[in-house]
């Protein structure tokens, strides 16, 4: 019961912060709201006993990626979104039924599929996953190839972003 109450608090905060991301006009406030979403999601990861990814979520996402976003927003000195959607007012009205359709469809599917999901007894016998030992073991055995390819991807991204953001010489 305690766990469910805690989940509901985290979920409410996450959804509220996510709505704030798309409602705020200023990109800076959107970025701060997004950090709130990431913190709440880190909490749910820890509730799912994925402690390692919860820590990574806070360190890499909220710590590194969002600082990069805030840095770029402040560097470019963007005040707020100019000329909202006055020109496209009818698209706003159109977007609401589309979003409602999407969410109803997805929720219906989830509830239909997971209503007959029961934790099988052989699943409960398996050891817990999510600590750094099981993640590290998986990364360096079965998933070694994707892990190495990811490191090459990161290297390419570093070189690419330096080249893209460099000022052209005349």
């Amino acid at each position, binding site marked *: 019961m305690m766990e469910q109450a805690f989940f509901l608090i985290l979920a409410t905060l996450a959804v509220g912060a*996510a709505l704030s*991301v798309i409602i705020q006009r200023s990109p800076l406030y959107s970025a701060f709201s997004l950090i709130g979403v990431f913190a709440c999601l880190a909490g749910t990861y820890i509730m799912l006993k994925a402690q390692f990814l919860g820590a990574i979520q806070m360190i890499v996402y909220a710590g590194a990626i969002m600082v990069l976003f805030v840095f770029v927003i402040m560097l470019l000195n963007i005040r707020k979104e100019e000329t909202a959607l006055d020109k496209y007012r009818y698209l706003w009205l159109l977007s609401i039924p589309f979003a409602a359709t999407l969410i109803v469809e997805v929720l219906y599917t989830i509830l239909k599929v997971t209503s007959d999901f029961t934790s099988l007894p052989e699943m409960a016998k398996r050891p817990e996953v*999510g600590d750094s030992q099981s993640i590290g073991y998986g990364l360096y055995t079965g998933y070694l190839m994707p892990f190495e390819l990811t490191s090459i991807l990161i290297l390419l*991204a570093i070189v690419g972003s330096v080249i893209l953001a460099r000022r052209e010489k005349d």
Partner: protein
Amino acid sequence: MVPLSWYLALSAVLFTIGAVGVFVKRNVISIFMCIELMLNAVNLTLIAFSSFYREVSGQLFVFIVMTVAAAEAGVGLALVIAVFRNRESLNTDDINLLKL
């Protein structure tokens, strides 16, 4: 014990908010942030299934998705800086041509 469907429902709601944001927002950086929101919603689904099935693969996927998201943010923000230098604007209505 929180049922699996609650986690999936939270993930679906966050994904929908992110998808709506991509269509509604007019600022390139805000659109980027909505994409990050959608990536995180999918990460939550993967971790929930991984935890309920006691299978580590889902969490390894999330690990790789996070690194790819970091690479995407780095390259994407470099592109934003390059575009802003040439156009002096981040509104998607002003940058609808790849040509300079």
